[in-house]
């Protein structure tokens, strides 16, 4: 296996351009690529479309903010596709003020749409959302007397993901619930940048225990603990 480039967070941020569709891993900030997010904030890139299961925490009362929320705060996104924004007051504010377009997708459907994007599947039939607002504008297909919504794949220009450990080839291992959408997004973007806490030599990861095969990963960024 060939080694992948290990780049700085700033270099990673530089590869994300205005107008890009950006996928970001993380669930309420857990498993978000914080180092890359900080660099992207510093770069000041705007005009992005975000695909993420949520927009993490941004609590106007306590001031708590994490995950992708600092980029929402900076109005980096013109459009957000997510399943939940309830704990980010700023995302809700932008949506209600019609500053940012927000498309809400059931979480399981969002996960599967990303998987389909990565797996070359043109769409899938799910019962989720039948008889709700989610059904609007979608084809209803009946198979064996049961109805389903036809949901379509999602792809991105760039995915920024976070793993616990990588080997230099880019094989990834996630920890705990920090896995969430990260392995799915790794398959569904043209450019995949993985932030990792630890980088080991090629051959040091058990081939049975790889969560994301190296071929999905284009480059690696080392996690940096935020200085406070």
């Amino acid at each position, binding site marked *: 296996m060939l080694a992948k480039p290990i780049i700085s967070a700033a270099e990673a941020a530089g590869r994300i351009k205005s107008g890009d569709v950006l996928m970001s891993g993380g669930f309420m900030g857990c498993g978000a690529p914080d180092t890359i997010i900080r660099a992207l904030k510093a770069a000041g890139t705007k005009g992005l479309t975000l695909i993420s299961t*949520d927009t993490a925490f941004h609590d106007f009362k306590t001031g708590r903010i994490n995950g992708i929320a600092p980029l929402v705060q900076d109005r980096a996104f013109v459009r957000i596709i997510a399943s939940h*924004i309830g704990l980010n007051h700023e995302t809700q504010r932008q949506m209600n003020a019609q500053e940012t377009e927000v498309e809400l997708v059931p*979480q399981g459907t969002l996960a599967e749409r990303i998987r389909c994007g990565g797996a070359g599947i043109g769409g899938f039939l799910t019962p989720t959302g039948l008889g709700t*607002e989610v059904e609007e504008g979608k084809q209803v297909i009946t198979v064996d007397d049961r109805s389903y919504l036809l949901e379509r794949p999602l792809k991105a220009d760039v995915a920024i993901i976070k793993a*616990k450990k990588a080997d230099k080839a880019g094989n990834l291992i996630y*920890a705990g*619930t920090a896995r969430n*959408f990260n392995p799915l997004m790794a398959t569904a973007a043209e450019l995949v940048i993985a932030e990792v806490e630890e980088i080991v030599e090629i051959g040091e990861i058990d081939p049975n225990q790889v969560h994301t095969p190296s071929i999905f990963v284009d480059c690696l960024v080392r996690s940096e603990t935020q200085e406070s």
Partner: protein
Amino acid sequence: MDYTPNKENIAKRIARIFKNGDVVNLGIGLPTLVVDHLPEGVTLILQSENGLMGLGPAPEKGQEDPDMVNAGGAPLSVVPGGCFFDSATSFGIIRGGHVDYTVLGVLEVDQQGNLANYKVPGKMVPGMGGAMDLTIGARVVIAATLHFEPSGASRLKRHCKLPLTAAGEVNYVVTDVGMFEIVGGRFHLLECFAPYTPEWILEKTDAEIHVSTSCKTVSL
């Protein structure tokens, strides 16, 4: 008869529904109270939709692991024999019918089994998160709710007015006055919780309720 909201009683009654080893997903908020009231000998396998089977108790202060949170973003622990997976697998488990029960909060629930719990247009639009998939996917859907809104109106309705989380998927509603099953387009009162009586519940609830012939009064 006076009504005093009592979330604890809802959790107590729901906790008695399960048998040992059931796979259960508990929504954030009221539903999570259920684990505090499980009978002796009943251990649930708790699923968390963000990618965990075998949710354990909240870790002690200082023991939190940033890589382990529940679906509300709060720190968690995992029980021995638990495991982690990605979100597509997690919702494959949910949508595929491998979760026995889900317990979800309620804004409105109606006698057709419709549930509204994710959106108040123009006011609160947090997004459905995993609730739509859970409601469709879990084998048994339990709606857990205080019987009345602060206004005094019953949360059990003839027809939900709020945007639906799922259509016709709720099996049971457990409130702080009774337990209801939804079959054939109406609520069936299975139990009323002392001191409330079937007559009182029927009077206070603007929905079609059939008092089951086996309806009992239960002290929780």
